[in-house]
């Protein structure tokens, strides 16, 4: 297969070395300067591109030059969605992979809504392929039917006698045409109301290996991220954020900025102080030289220790019911034996490699935004509101995102609002049409808020004389992510935020009495979904506790789970395959003298996908440990791109492993204690386990893979550490005593 399918969010190498001398930057280049060409390339969207001759629907564009452009309504943030969506179109269109390109869709909810979310354009909940599965295949099939119709008319043969393969339309008579040659004629035909989709046995791309469309651009440095965008006359903005959430500037002393060349303005904003300069370094030096006095009256000054103590107290009292099967309290009271455990989870930062950023240019009647947006609809309306525009007056040009993990879907569009406030203030002062690039430093990214909420879970269960679980009580304490957002009315019912209890209220195990209750304390720490949302904590507490019960009942952890999952064939399939591939039940090769080894299992469903993992650990004499091997099995329906499914499992495991081994955002006197990757460590290559991924064969509709691997690794590791040492770790991150 040709590997030249390319992503349009990149630019020519020719444009890379060019003048680009922002006033004051002061570099003189001694080389011949290529023309300023960059603005023609980046941030191109389906809307902005010159109309191609054949655009049968919102997703497919075919040019005279024979390129097939697939318009991606979803953000490419690493998860491979550009490739996945292009695969669906190319399959039904019978395109050659080499002619396929991908470009980001503009913000337009009328054409690009997530079909699983109602009138809302956004990427998340591992829903991209699932919600596009029919839509994008139909888009490809409709385009194909029209190309066939055009060829049939031109050659005067019945459409049924025409073949399309690898981008070539042909007839038994020997006549042939490319898509490009037929594009104009096809465009004149009516768009078919109904199309026939392929029989899966005829797939040439779906379920096969298709290389990523962005592989080359990401290996040669030409892939364009928001951080890289440069527009004529652009200024860089850095914002001094308050040390405590919600503080406002009271007095700003910018006198120390006078000697710094390149600084253009200092703006006192509602939530901080912005510095605009002609380069990052000038803006950074200026921001560091600012002296800001903050109004912090009445702000939260809590600490992590105090907060967790409060949460533990709350966990001892009944909460709002999230699930009630039978009378769990009574079943536990009547049981031969009962077991209790409390699990604790800190706040977590997303820490995407590319710190949050965006570029905006406000003109008289419109605002252009360049960013990697996970929630176009939220972002568009939030920016419009700040600037007094209508949402359709805000254009979003989609660029590659250097990771996101939920962060670029902020329900309040926080950093976009910050930038909109800046360009709004500039406009009030008479400066319009000046592009502003807001860059957050790593410290801003880590300290300016929006974390996976901290949680405490208290679990209790009863065992009968045969070691069967008779009752299960699960209380969760933690902030609601949805409260105060546009999603509250859909996702918070009777005081229960579904995303707080997902994975707990949906416990798959056959237990006669189950009670799940939730406390939702209000704390002034901004929280947000983080790769796999509620499952980030519920998978851990449920899968560790079931393991503890197995040990208490003297039963093998896989055997016990198997006995409780008879009604969940997908869980069972994943669990069985993981156990088999991991050699569950066979002795682990022993470590070096003084080392202990252990194996642990966990299985969990999130976003319609079931993942089972078996982790192998080695514990050294100094209580440090390594995760050596992870066997991961995924049941995600039909795997559209098996290699990408494997990549997402690998990446999801690493993301979960960073949280399991070291991730914690903590507070002291209302301030975040961490600031960068030295004190919020991310897993590094020497700590990388060997990961083996197996996909359960399936012909069912595809379900998501971006998130479901993440929540499973921490319980698998904790269970393995317990198997190795007998020590149960119930607080994340996992540190052995």
């Amino acid at each position: 297969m040709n590997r030249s399918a390319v992503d349009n969010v990149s630019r020519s190498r020719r444009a890379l070395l060019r003048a680009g001398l922002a006033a004051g930057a002061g570099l003189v280049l001694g080389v011949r300067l290529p023309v300023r060409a960059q603005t023609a390339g980046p941030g191109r969207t389906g809307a902005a591109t010159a109309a191609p001759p054949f655009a049968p629907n919102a997703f497919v564009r075919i040019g005279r030059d024979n390129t097939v452009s697939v318009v991606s309504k979803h953000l490419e943030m690493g998860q491979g969605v550009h490739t996945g969506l292009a695969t669906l179109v190319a399959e039904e269109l019978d395109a050659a992979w080499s002619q396929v390109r991908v470009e980001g869709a503009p913000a337009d909810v009328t054409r690009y809504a997530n079909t699983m979310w109602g009138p809302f354009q956004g990427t998340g909940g591992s829903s991209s392929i699932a919600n596009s599965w029919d839509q994008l295949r139909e888009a490809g099939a409709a385009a194909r039917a029209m190309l066939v119709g055009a060829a049939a008319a031109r050659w005067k043969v019945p459409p049924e006698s025409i073949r399309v393969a690898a981008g070539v339309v042909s007839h038994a008579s020997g006549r042939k045409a490319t898509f490009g040659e037929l594009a104009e004629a096809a465009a004149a035909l009516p768009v078919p109301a109904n199309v026939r989709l392929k029989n899966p046995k005829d797939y040439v791309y779906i379920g096969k290996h298709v290389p990523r469309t962005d592989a080359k651009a990401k290996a040669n440095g030409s892939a364009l991220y928001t951080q890289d965008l440069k527009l004529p006359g652009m200024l860089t903005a850095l914002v001094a954020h308050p040390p405590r959430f919600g503080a406002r500037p009271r007095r700003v002393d910018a006198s120390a900025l006078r000697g710094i060349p390149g600084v253009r303005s200092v703006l006192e904003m509602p939530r901080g102080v912005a510095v605009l300069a002609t380069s990052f370094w000038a803006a950074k030096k200026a921001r560091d030289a600012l002296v800001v006095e903050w109004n912090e009256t009445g702000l939260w000054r809590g600490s992590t220790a105090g907060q967790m103590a409060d949460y533990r107290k709350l966990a001892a009292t009944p909460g709002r019911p999230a699930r009630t099967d039978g009378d769990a309290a009574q079943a536990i009271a009547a049981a031969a034996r009962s077991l209790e455990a409390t699990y604790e989870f800190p706040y977590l930062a997303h820490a995407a490699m590319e710190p949050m950023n965006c570029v905006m240019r406000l003109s008289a009647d419109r605002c252009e935004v360049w960013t990697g947006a996970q929630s176009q609809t939220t972002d568009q309306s939030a920016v419009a509101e700040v600037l007094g525009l209508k949402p359709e007056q805000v254009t979003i040009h989609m660029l590659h995102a250097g990771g996101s993990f939920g962060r670029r879907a902020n329900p309040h569009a926080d950093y976009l609002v910050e930038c909109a406030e800046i360009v709004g203030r500039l406009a009030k002062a008479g400066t319009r049409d000046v592009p502003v690039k807001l860059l957050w430093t790593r410290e801003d990214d880590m300290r300016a808020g929006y974390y996976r909420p901290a949680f405490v879970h208290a679990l209790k269960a009863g065992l009968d004389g045969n070691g069967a679980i008779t009752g299960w009580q699960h209380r969760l304490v933690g902030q609601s992510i949805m409260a105060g957002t546009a999603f509250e009315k859909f996702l918070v019912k009777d005081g229960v935020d579904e995303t707080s209890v997902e994975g707990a209220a949906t416990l798959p195990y056959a237990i006669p009495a189950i009670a799940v209750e939730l406390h939702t304390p209000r704390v002034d720490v901004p929280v947000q979904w983080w790769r796999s949302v509620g499952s980030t904590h519920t998978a851990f507490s449920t899968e560790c506790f079931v393991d503890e019960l197995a040990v208490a009942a003297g039963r093998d952890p896989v055997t016990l789970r198997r006995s409780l999952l008879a009604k969940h064939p997908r869980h069972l399939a994943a669990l069985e395959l993981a156990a088999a591939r991991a050699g569950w039940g066979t002795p682990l090769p022993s470590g070096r003298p003084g080392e202990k080894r252990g194996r642990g299992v966990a299985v969990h469903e999130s976003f319609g996908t079931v993942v089972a993992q078996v982790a192998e650990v080695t514990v050294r004499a100094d209580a440090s440990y390594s995760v050596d091997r992870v066997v991961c099995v995924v049941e995600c329906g039909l795997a559209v791109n098996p290699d990408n499914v494997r990549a997402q499992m690998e990446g999801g495991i690493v993301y979960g492993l960073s949280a399991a081994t070291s991730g914690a955002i903590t507070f002291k006197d209302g301030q975040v204690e961490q600031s960068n990757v030295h004190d919020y460590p991310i897993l590094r290559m020497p700590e990388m386990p060997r990961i083996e991924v197996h996909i359960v064969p399936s012909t069912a509709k595809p379900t998501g893979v971006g998130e479901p691997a993440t929540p499973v690794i921490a319980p698998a590791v904790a269970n393995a550490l317990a198997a190795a040492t007998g020590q149960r770790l119930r607080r994340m991150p996992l540190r052995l005593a």
Partner: protein
Amino acid sequence: MPVLFVNQERVDVAASVPGDTPLLWVLRDSLDLTGAKYGCGMAQCGACTVHVDGQPVRACQTPLASLKPGAEITTIEGLASREGKALQTAWEKVDVSQCGFCQPGQIMSAAALLASNKRPTDADIDAAMAGNLCRCGTYQRIRAAIREAAKTLG
């Protein structure tokens, strides 16, 4: 005017550029070479890795004034060595990249490794790459791609 050679082209840096400007921002803001990324600004993530006189350095912590006159700087855009090309090909073949943001830095570190060590062991790879974070978790594929590139270099 300090003289540098960036991707084999001569660059005269004006005296007005503050000497404390990190090389990363000279490359990104002034030369529009944006392949090297800002990830942490404190030599902890490796996203900004470039070569200075053949050695991998963290450009975010390399002030302009610390560079020797005539220093030769190579960024991902100018990576033309045999090792570099082999790595880029391997990166595509193994489909290493996810978000891709860390990958220019990863490839620059790997190119420096292969330039000095034709047959790196897994331990060599781990040691050479430990300073490069990948939040998307592509480490397994990075290892595989480095091995693949080493193999093709013979």
